[in-house]
């Protein structure tokens, strides 16, 4: 938008506007740098805040916090073992269900279903991820837990009741139900990546196997899965990270007990459910500090899991964009 005056007076105006725009550029650049810097600063800040707030508990209980099952707000004796155990076990159940399921789903979406059906099913699976955690909790407590108590747990008790895992009264609420609901919740996250992995395997490789007379299952099992193994493991870690910290759904259905039981039918708790249940009611400083130490443990675990999953996924995508 040059006007006549700009042309008449060429010496003064452009130089001042150029320096103004350079200044604008510098300011803008610094603004973006500061905003970008904020994100790593937040991660560090979260760690420092959790560490600082949990210091009294760390000092008081030391390493014993990790192995003690005591959780007594009255005598102010705290140990996180049952919460840590519950977090790990419910996550394990979730992954045992969700990983095979998401591989099967990826197989269906990429190899079996016609493209249009595949798109519809993909959308539906993704919507599972959009449903808020608390809705899973409502559904889990009022509908799915009674369903487990009436149908699934009695059946499991009859067939596998000789295992200590499946003994005890079928109450519905407990570790097993929490694990199953977690599985539904992390399924879309794992599935999104396994689907990518399946569809990113070069068709030349698959076609070569089909050409040898392999069936769809054999191609998946012997070609696709080994080919995309790094990515699949990355996806599993991503789901693991999700499942570890899932809060509301677990809080509704896990039963909230600070005791470790061998049976999966029994009530338990997880780090996140303990925080959700007790934090706003904790009044004593040491109680709050112990709860925050649980949070710190969860932070460290999820951080490590995230790091691993990102490393694996990055390696997969890099290798695949270069190779073949």
């Amino acid at each position: 938008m040059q006007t006549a005056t700009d042309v008449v007076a060429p010496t003064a105006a452009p130089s001042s506007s150029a320096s103004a725009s350079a200044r604008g550029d510098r300011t803008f650049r610094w603004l973006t740098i500061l905003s970008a810097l904020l994100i790593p600063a937040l991660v560090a800040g979260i760690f420092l805040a959790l560490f600082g707030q949990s210091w009294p508990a760390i000092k008081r209980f030391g390493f014993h916090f990790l192995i003690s099952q005591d959780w007594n707000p009255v005598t102010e004796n705290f140990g996180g073992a049952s919460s840590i155990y519950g977090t790990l076990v419910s996550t394990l159940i979730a992954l045992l269900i969700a990983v095979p399921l998401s591989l099967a789903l990826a197989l269906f979406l990429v190899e079996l279903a016609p493209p249009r059906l595949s798109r519809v099913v993909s959308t539906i699976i993704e919507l599972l991820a959009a449903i808020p955690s608390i809705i899973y909790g409502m559904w889990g407590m009022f509908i799915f837990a009674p369903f487990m108590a009436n149908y699934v747990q009695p059946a499991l008790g009859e067939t596998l009741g000789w295992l200590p895992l499946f003994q005890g009264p079928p109450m519905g609420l407990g570790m097993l139900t929490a694990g199953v609901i977690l599985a539904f919740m992390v399924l879309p996250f794992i599935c999104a990546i396994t689907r990518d992995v399946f569809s990113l395997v070069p068709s030349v490789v698959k076609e070569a196997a089909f050409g040898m007379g392999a069936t769809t299952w054999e191609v998946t099992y012997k070609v696709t899965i080994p080919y995309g193994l790094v990515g699949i493991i990355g996806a599993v870690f991503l789901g693991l990270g999700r499942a570890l910290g899932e809060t509301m759904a677990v809080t509704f259905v896990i039963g909230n007990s600070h005791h470790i039981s061998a049976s999966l039918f029994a009530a338990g708790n997880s780090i996140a459910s303990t925080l959700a249940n007790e934090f706003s009611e904790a009044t004593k400083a040491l109680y709050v500090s112990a709860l925050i130490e649980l949070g710190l443990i969860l932070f460290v675990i999820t951080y490590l899991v995230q790091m691993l999953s990102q490393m694996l996924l990055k390696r997969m995508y890099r290798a695949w964009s270069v190779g073949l």
Partner: protein
Amino acid sequence: MKPRPATGRRLTNVVVSVLASLSAVLGMVILAWIVWEVLARGLGAFDLAFFTQLPTPPGMEGGGLVNAIIGTLVMTLLATLVAVPLGLLGGVYLAEFGQGSRLADNTRFSANVLVGMPSIIIGVFAYALVVVPLGRFSAYAGITALAVIMLPIAARTTEDMLRLVPNTLREAALALGAPRWRITLDIVFRAAKAGLLTGILLAVARVSGETAPLLFTALNSPYMMTSLGQPTPNLTVTIFNYAMSPYHDWQQKAWGASLLITFGVLALTLLTRYALGERKT
């Protein structure tokens, strides 16, 4: 060498195919089951009072959750206003300035970690950062927690969307002598407008159903909010408290609130998917 008969292998293949199809059916059944139950149980709670009245004590008929609806809207809106500009700027750095720099790598990694961080941890962080110094639960703390959750999502989607803008546009503008900040704001943003909007909606959808980060930051309250410095009513914590209560009419209200949240979030998500799908084709 004699060829092996293929019947066993074919059978395995059929079994696996059937199992794979069943897993797809299972996924759809779960979604339909949840949506159906929320709909069936929640619709009964909807009446005019639900959207206009304050909560009543248990046992008393009537009453509504207007305070919680307003609280959730206000906190989500303010968190969006805080997080989105910062997220946009951070995303601009990642896409426009920081290619290959160590800061960009770190930011991207941290953003991914933060997106995957359990929201309850963010709640504890907001508690330590805001509730402890102020000495009480407040909307400020809730907004802080929600904004921290939104920020990395906004930054990462901004980066992805800006990367889709072809470089020729930037070069053309540079050649005309436009400064970088004008190029970014006037040209790149305009080209990526639909995508950026989608990203923001996605972040809003993600945050509006969050409960865990509000439990011990905004807490909850049966009154209308009058300032940001006090415990603030919100739908999700209300669902939690009411569902855990033994009163039938409170549980009924919890289902009503669940219906509101579920359909709000699903509608936002479908809208963003639709908008993104339109873009790609």
